[in-house]
């Protein structure tokens, strides 16, 4: 046995070294800056097990990536030749701070030589960080640490660039930079500077014009100064990001445990969005932040803990996207009250079994209002500001005087919508009729038919008498509103051509352009409504349920709105069957879970391939 002891020790040491190199090795996710607010992380191993790279690079959305990476100098090559280590995760990120935006992606490196055949525009730069290589190309920065890299771009916000530029500009004793612009505008109006502007109708024209008035041509004009400021602060912010990442070793993984936890999931991809930091950096809040700092602090607290975490799962015949919306207790209490609503089963009567897509949104606006009043009003009341005090008083008076029973009885908040594809609807057209004697012609209005997407949108109401009152009055004002007994019609309401029908029955107020529904099924579709099985799913889902028959939706897309190449992709998708379904959990004070499942049938190589087909279609359509 004693002979085995050294062997055992050697074996143990080897295993320890192997494990420590695996566990402690720099991974691509450790290069994600902590300021990243949105991250989509792809677990390459599992994805690539199912999708060949040769197939991957055929997609139109990948062509764009390839162009970016290969920029023609290595045409004919694919991502396979890029030297990227597909055993590491690929993490795409975006973030925004008060002063700059940063975006990019981190990835693993397998072969550095191959990588620089791809990233051939990047030039090596001096590095102040031991063991880290720096490369730059225009505004892009490629940093390699160990076997991982980050491609990042940091852009200062225009607000901070303008602020610093103005400060320097005025400190140098300059006039308002826009003064010259105004003067030049007058010159253009009078036709004095026509020639100059024709030759230089861009900003260059402005600069050359300005030079002629400047005493010292060696001094920077406003725009040149701004460019310089932008470059300097860009370098400064970039250094801050790198110092934090490479010296302090602070990254998103060790900054936010929720993200670190999400990374441990074995799904094909994970998603992270820190909404609380999004709120803090929202451009619209700068006014509140500046004028009402304590209110801004309270809003931040309200949104603390607000994060979206998601998993993408590729299965044999389905693609699943599971998402959890987390929030703080105060906001959670409002969401919980809002989503604690009794399901209105009357909705189910108005969803046809052959619909292309439908959704149901089940909320209790009254409860949400009461809870929001409880949570938000104390925050506003504490604010010692005359403007906010006046607003608080207005809200409190409205709360006392407005008949909330009538208001929230009329609009309870729950709604549903359906899309039934494209159908012929009745319109009118002008026809010319000719006199055989002279061939003179007269115009006459005749009935016509045109294709239109058919939709229905309905709201739950306890006070059907109130919309009825409004419609009655409107019908007195214009003959375009007509009471047809079971329904109302508003002629030429949609795009000044098609009628809109309104049904006020069964505790629902419904808008639709479906003449068949209004005329023949104003009390519901009866046996033609969705099946019990689907109805059960809708009832069981939390505050929201959505359903899309992808095959029908594709077939019913209006072709005219897409370019020929987009229609080609859509045509490729036609004939493939699939159902997309969105369900939600019951909302608690801490979180709400969402699940988007895309199930499909047919002859597909695998679900990853089908997902990419789908992504490509969406990419092509939205391009």
């Amino acid at each position, binding site marked *: 046995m004693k002979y085995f002891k050294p062997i055992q020790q050697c074996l143990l040491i080897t295993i320890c070294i192997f494990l420590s190199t695996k566990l402690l090795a720099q991974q691509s996710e450790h290069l994600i800056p902590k300021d990243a607010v949105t991250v989509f992380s792809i677990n390459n191993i599992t994805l690539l097990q199912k999708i060949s790279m040769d197939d991957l690079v055929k997609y139109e959305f990948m062509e764009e990536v390839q162009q970016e990476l290969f920029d023609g100098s290595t045409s004919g090559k694919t991502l396979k030749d890029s030297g990227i280590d597909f055993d590491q995760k690929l993490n795409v990120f975006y973030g925004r701070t008060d002063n700059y935006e940063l975006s990019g992606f981190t990835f693993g490196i397998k072969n550095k030589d191959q990588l620089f055949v791809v990233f051939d525009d990047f030039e090596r730069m001096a590095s102040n960080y031991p063991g880290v290589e720096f490369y730059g190309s225009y505004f892009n920065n490629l940093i390699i640490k160990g076997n991982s890299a980050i491609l990042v771009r940091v852009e200062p916000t225009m607000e901070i660039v303008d602020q610093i530029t103005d400060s320097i500009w005025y400190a140098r004793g300059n006039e308002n930079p826009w003064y010259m612009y105004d003067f030049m505008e007058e010159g253009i109006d009078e036709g004095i500077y026509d020639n100059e502007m024709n030759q230089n109708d861009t900003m260059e024209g402005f600069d050359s014009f300005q030079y002629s008035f400047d005493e010292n041509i060696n001094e920077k004009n406003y725009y040149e100064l701004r460019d310089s400021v932008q470059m300097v602060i860009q370098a400064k912010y970039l250094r801050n990001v790198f110092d934090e990442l490479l010296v302090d070793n602070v990254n998103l993984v060790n900054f936010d445990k929720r993200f670190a936890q999400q990374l441990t999931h074995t799904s094909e991809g994970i998603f992270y969005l820190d909404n609380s930091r999004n709120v803090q950096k929202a451009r619209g809040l700068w006014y509140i932040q500046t004028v009402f700092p304590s209110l801004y602090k309270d809003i931040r607290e309200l949104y603390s803990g607000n994060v979206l975490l998601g998993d993408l799962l590729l299965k044999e015949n389905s693609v699943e996207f599971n998402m959890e919306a987390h929030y703080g207790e105060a906001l959670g209490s409002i969401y919980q009250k809002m989503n604690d609503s009794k399901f209105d089963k009357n909705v189910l009567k108005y969803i046809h079994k052959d619909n292309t897509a439908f959704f149901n949104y089940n909320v209790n606006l009254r409860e949400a209002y009461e809870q929001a009043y409880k949570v938000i009003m104390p925050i506003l009341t504490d604010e010692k500001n005359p403007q906010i005090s006046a607003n608080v008083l207005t809200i409190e008076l409205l709360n006392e005087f407005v008949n909330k029973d009538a208001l929230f009885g009329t609009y309870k908040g729950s709604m549903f919508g359906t899309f039934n594809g494209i159908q012929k609807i009745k319109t009118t*057209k*002008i026809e010319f009729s000719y006199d055989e004697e*002279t061939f003179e012609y007269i115009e006459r209005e005749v009935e016509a038919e*045109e294709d239109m997407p058919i939709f229905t949108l309905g709201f739950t109401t306890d006070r059907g008498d109130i919309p009825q009152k409004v419609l009655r009055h409107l019908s007195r004002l214009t003959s375009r509103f007509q009471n047809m007994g079971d329904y109302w019609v508003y002629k030429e309401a949609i795009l000044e051509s*098609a009628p809109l029908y309104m049904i006020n029955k069964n505790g629902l107020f419904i808008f639709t352009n479906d003449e068949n529904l209004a005329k023949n099924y104003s009390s519901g579709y009866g046996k033609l409504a969705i099946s019990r099985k689907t109805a059960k799913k809708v009832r069981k889902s939390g505050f929201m349920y959505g359903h899309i028959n992808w095959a029908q939706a594709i077939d019913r897309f209006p072709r005219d709105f897409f370019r020929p190449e987009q229609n080609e992709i859509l045509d490729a998708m036609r004939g493939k069957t699939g159902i997309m379904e969105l369900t939600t959990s019951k909302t608690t004070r801490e979180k709400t879970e969402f699940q988007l499942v895309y199930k499909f049938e047919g002859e597909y190589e695998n679900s990853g391939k089908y997902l990419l087909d789908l992504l490509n279609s969406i990419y092509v359509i939205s391009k």
Partner: protein
Amino acid sequence: MRFLALFGFILVFGLTSCIEIIDDITIKNDGSGMLKYTVNLSSSKLKINSILALDSLEGKKVPSKDEISQRIYAFGKKLEEKNGVSNVSISTDFNDFIFKMSCEFTSLSALQNAIKEVVQEETKEKSSSELDHNWMSWDGQKLIRSIPDITIKKTKELKADEIESLKQGSYTSITRFERMVEKCENPNAQISKNKMAVMMRTNPYALTQNYNLLENTIYLSPLKN
């Protein structure tokens, strides 16, 4: 005529809608006359309204009603300024999408020259083979008329449903005179019961496939002294 025909066809190709065009020309014995041109898109008004509600379509900016109107009126204004053309009248109806243009002319050659000049100004084309020839000629006894070559190449790019739309449209060409028509060479031409007008009808798709379809020579009865 060419510009007007193209205007109609731009709408057709741009919107692939069902279109009706009426091209109505009156020729007096002295060669002067009146042209009335009508484009009726009322059967596609829902589609056009939905397109006008968009900012852009197929990567191109969708013009507003005001911009379309301005362009049409600018065309009318330019035409009015040309020699031999007067009383240009434009009407735009954006409820039913019916656009009308009418003008008086001293001679067919004056009308054709005026249209060619405006088209050149509008399209910035210095010369074009399609603008070189005259599509109407009048010698006091007979009228020879045709339809200019309408970008036939474009129809090859059309999809089946767009072709169907064009087939459902109509192109009506009416020629009126101050005296009776004796005969016409095109067998598809109809002579009115009072013998003072000739009408030919086809659909825009057929016209794009054969622009000679509406070619006709109309012989009139001799002038009475």
